[in-house]
Structure formats: structure tokens, C-alpha cells
């Protein structure tokens, strides 16, 4: 794979103003100094618990709102944060987002045909507009909704969760994007359907060389899907590197905590107890230095002083920890 980077985030931060009277002027540190690169055709998993900033990261890339600071480079050109949120069709065509909740990501008053023909109408050239119906049927077949005639004129509430998520994916791929941002696409689905959705995304990567940012809290799912994993906690990336390394030889204590907390049926009852306490920190005044220090069993004096800088554990595998 050519080492061309499709997109890169450099020290990107996003702070939201706090919408309450008493805490006027304070900000929520949703994302701080996040940097990573995404190669063409690569699947990068963003793993973390709620409030870790993974969805904010995806929204910045999808340009739903601008970042507060830091650079965001797409196809070599720096993206001007000012104009995000505007229509800028060219960019929208290249970067698409799949949302988590299959029930609320399809407009209940539109038929499947209206939903899936919309992208063609917006982005399609003149040819795109003609023969819409047949193009939508092809799209339905490509996501396994056979026979398309049975689905094309249905309303979302007439489909199951799995089928709806397939319509979502069909809509995402209809514009032939270069980058897919999947925000926990399978967490609301039953186990049996999850696999087919994940496999479909992997196939698209193989056939269309689509680079994907796969967001999840399920470490095992991330391992199945991704080439590289970035572990996020309280808005910052703690560890990033090739999947097998990050999971196999986890370096950062938080990654180890995540791994030991994840269910692992094959281990059965031989499990040591989790050694942690406390809760996810408030993002309004996050802990000083390394944000995991209040819960870290290996806490050192330095950890609460300053944010640890990147350390290369081995080839391409970095962690932010003084250990």
C-alpha cells in the first residue's frame, strides 16, 4: 500500500462551552491534542469508554463542527475550520459517516427509495439523476437486501434493526466515499447480525480501498476489524499502534485495564480481579498531567505533574506514559 495518508490530525482539540449559568465561561474538554494518520485503505479503530472523545473526533473529520485548535489535513490540503458545517459538496462526497442507532438514522417519513436516491440527487451528475430506481435497486443488492423490490418502497419502521443498518451502509457507499467514519455501527444490533455488517464493511475496504475510522467500546470487535488501534480516554489518545501489538503487548495501564475488563469466555473462571477504582473523570476540569493518573495503579509522582510525551514502544506502537 502506498504510504500516502488520506487524512491526518495534528494536535486537534475541541472544547464545548458549558451551557449552564453557574459554570459560565467553563469549557468541556471533549478532545485534547489528538494526532493520528490514516493511510489509504486502512482501518483505524478508536476504542474508548463513553466520554473518551471518539465521537467528537469523528464529527470533526466529518466536519459537522469545527475544531477549537490544531490542524486537520485531508488529501494533503489543510482544511479551514471556519468553513466546516457549510455544504462544501466535494468534501462531503469523499467523507461519509455511519451512525450508531439504526432506528434514528433513517427518516421515519421517507421510503427506502427516497432515502437512497437522495445522495444521487445531491451528488450525482446529470446521468446520476436518470434511472434512479434501478441504481437504488443495485445498491440494495450490494448490501444483501434481496430481492430489492421487497424493500425499496417500505418505510423504516417496517424493517428490522439489521436491515436498517444495511440501508445506512448502502446510503454511505452510494457516494463512493474515500473515508468512512463508523460510529459504533453494530453496538445496537443483535450478535447474529453484527458479524454480517462488520464483514460487509471489511469487503468494501478490500474491493473499494476505502479507509475507515471504526469507533467502538468493544475491544474484541476492534481487533476483528482494524489494522491499527488508538485507545482514547477522557479526550486524549493514550496508546496507538498495530492491533496485534496494542492488544497483545498492551503498554499503557488503561489499555491493560480495558483488556482485562473485556469479557473473554475462553478464559473461563481463571481471572484475576480488576485492580481499579473511581469513575470516568469530569471533562469540565479534567485531572492534571496524565488524565488517567487518579485511577492508575502504577501512578508515579510525575504523572499528575505533566502530560507524558509519546514513547515508541516498538515499530509504529506509541504510548503516552512515563512507565
Amino acid at each position: 500500500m502506498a504510504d500516502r495518508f488520506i487524512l491526518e490530525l495534528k494536535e486537534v482539540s475541541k472544547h464545548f462551552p458549558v451551557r449552564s449559568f453557574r459554570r459560565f465561561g467553563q469549557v468541556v474538554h471533549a478532545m485534547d491534542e489528538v494526532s493520528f494518520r490514516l493511510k489509504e485503505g486502512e482501518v483505524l479503530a478508536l476504542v474508548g469508554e463513553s466520554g473518551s472523545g471518539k465521537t467528537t473526533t469523528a464529527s470533526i473529520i466529518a466536519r459537522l463542527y469545527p475544531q477549537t485548535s490544531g490542524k486537520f489535513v485531508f488529501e494533503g490540503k489543510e482544511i479551514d475550520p471556519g468553513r466546516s458545517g457549510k455544504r462544501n459538496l466535494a468534501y462531503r462526497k469523499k467523507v461519509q459517516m455511519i451512525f450508531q442507532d439504526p432506528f434514528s438514522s433513517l427518516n421515519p417519513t421517507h421510503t427506502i427509495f427516497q432515502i437512497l436516491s437522495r445522495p444521487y440527487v445531491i451528488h450525482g451528475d446529470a446521468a446520476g439523476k436518470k434511472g434512479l430506481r434501478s441504481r437504488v435497486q443495485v445498491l440494495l443488492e450490494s448490501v444483501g437486501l434481496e430481492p430489492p423490490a421487497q424493500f425499496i418502497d417500505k418505510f423504516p419502521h417496517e424493517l428490522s434493526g439489521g436491515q436498517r443498518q444495511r440501508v445506512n451502509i448502502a446510503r454511505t457507499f452510494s457516494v463512493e466515499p474515500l473515508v468512512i467514519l463508523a460510529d459504533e455501527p453494530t453496538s445496537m444490533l443483535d450478535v447474529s447480525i453484527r458479524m454480517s455488517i462488520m464483514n460487509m464493511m471489511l469487503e468494501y475496504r478490500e474491493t473499494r480501498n476505502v479507509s475507515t475510522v471504526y469507533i467502538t467500546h468493544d475491544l474484541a470487535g476492534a481487533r476483528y476489524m482494524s489494522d491499527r488501534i488508538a485507545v482514547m480516554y477522557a479526550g486524549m489518545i493514550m496508546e496507538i499502534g498495530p492491533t496485534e501489538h496494542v492488544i497483545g503487548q498492551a503498554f499503557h495501564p488503561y489499555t491493560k485495564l480495558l483488556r482485562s475488563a473485556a469479557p473473554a469466555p475462553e478464559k473461563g473462571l481463571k481471572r484475576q480481579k480488576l485492580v481499579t477504582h473511581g469513575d470516568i473523570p469530569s471533562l469540565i476540569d479534567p485531572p492534571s498531567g496524565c488524565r488517567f493518573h487518579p485511577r492508575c495503579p502504577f501512578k508515579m509522582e510525575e504523572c499528575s505533574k505533566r502530560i507524558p510525551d509519546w514513547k515508541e514502544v516498538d515499530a509504529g506502537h506509541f504510548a503516552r506514559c512515563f512507565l
Partner: protein
Amino acid sequence: MRNSESSKQVLLEVRNLQAGYEVKKGFVGAVDDVSFCLHKGEFLGIAGESGCGKSTLAFAIMNLLRDNARIRSGEIDFQGRLVSALSGEGFNKIRWVNLSMVFQSAMNALNPVLKVGEQLCDAIHAHRSISAQKAKERAQQMLQLVDIGPERYDSYPHQLSGGMKQRVMIAMALVLEPQLVIMDEPTTALDVVVQRTIIEKIQELQQQLDFSVIFITHDLSLLVEISDRLAIMYAGKIIEEGPAQDVFSHPLHPYTHGLMNAFPSLSGPIRRMGGIEGKPPDLLDPPKGCRFFPRCSQVMDRCANTYPPEILFEGDHRVACHLYEGKGDMQNG
């Protein structure tokens, strides 16, 4: 098996339970002819996808079916007594005293306008006539047991985190020292780390207070790890049941096999896994034969029209599937 084999005294037995919802077009049989038994101190996991009837089963056992939901037939024995026949008040005496429940969404399982401690005392006063002071002490003792400081007695639900709220629910479920606690997806809404702490707390309390647990969830990987026995439900029926490790290592029913193959693991080689195509049947008029036949990879013509008998294998591992007809160790049919 955690405690000794000999304590095989049966705590709860469900026989051919039928429960569901009355709707305009008829009766939705969410739980269709389900039977199983639970031994004292045992941890039974019930797994199944959404809509398979596992929550209805829990509510039926707790006699909490409301509005248009009701038990149509079947019997439930608890400590030898036929509880399914008890009237509302009759059941009220044993509910929460002998069997209690932890609900799924910790978010609004607690009354937002009442102090947490008061809600605990409510449960105590409902069944025991003891002084307010004693009840408060008992409540604080329970909060201590689930690692929540007694000072939290006076806080309101919205002041607690998700994990804390669920621990309060567990404390509330155990406050009258019941013999059985049914847990309906208690950790689904929580983050991975908090979920693990809750699970460990449940196991620790089970050691201490020796109550038995029915743990209901769709997260099979979690269930396999923590339960003694495992029952897999599909479209209102238990299609396979047996010791957890047994069911995990060599699943019998094609559906269980599909499920076990459908969640990626943290270790071992990454191999392409297949999902199960299609979707579960409509429970208003379910198919005649085995309900999984439209999605089953090893479907035979028999499957479509006759419901498979239950075949028992050694180690108390049973399955309802035509593939194993005549192969079981103890054919109980």
C-alpha cells in the same frame, strides 16, 4: 460447579410456562412452553437476542406482568410451593422477600424525587415492621456492602453515576436477603470497566450471601464467563441448556453454534466469522416446526413441520433439535 454437587436442592422449577401479550390481532406468545429448574446457590445465565422473550420470562417469574401481559398457562414452583397459583396479595408476601429483581436501565429504575436511602427503607418497611432507625441502619449496611458510602443515603438518584445507581439497585434487591435474584440485563447500559466491577461485586455477594442468580443478557461472551449453567432462548423457547463451559466449547444447536461463532475473541487467530442471516419469526403466528428452520444452515424437511423433541446428553446438557434425535444419552423425549 461452585458449591458442592450434593446441594442439588431445587430452588425454582418452571414447567411449560406460556406467557405473552394480548394485542388486537391475537396473543403474542413471547414465552412459549418454557421449562427449566434452578438449584440453590446456582448462577443460571439466560442468553437470547432482542425479542426472544427473556425479559417476559423474568417478569412472569416475578409475577410482574402488567396491563396486557399475562401468564396463559404453565406452573412455577418456588421452594416447593406452587407460586404461579398465588393471588396478587399472596405473591406480594414472597416477592422481594424470597425473590427480587435488578432491572435493566439503571437510569430510571430509581425514583428521581426520593432519596436513595428512603427507597431502600421502603422495601424493608413493606415487608418487615421494624423501627425507622433500624431500617435506616440496615439500608446503610447494605450500601456499605456494595461499596457505596453510607453518606450516600441522603443523595438523590441524579447525583449518582450509572455504576453507582446499579449498585444501589443490587443493594435494594438484597436488602431482605432473598434466595433468588433475577437480573435483567443489569450491565448493558454501562461502560466496560464499570460493567466488570458490577459483575465482580455480584459474584462476591453471591459467595457471601449464597443466593442463586438468573442473569439475563444478549451479551453471550460475558455470560459464558460468569455463569454456572447457560440457557439459550430463541423466539420464545429454550433451544439449548447446559453447563456454561460445555455449551461454549461444543454447542449442539445450530443457532447456539452460530452465536458462539459470532463474537470475536481477544486472543487466538483472527479468522473471518459469519453472522446468521435472516431475522427471528413473528411471535404472533410462529412457524409450525422448529422456529429456527428458516435461518438454519443444516435444515431438514422434518424441521419445517414438527417441533423437535428435547434430547438430553450427559452432564445435564439438553437441546431441542432434530439433528440429535436418537443420539442422546438419556432420551427423555
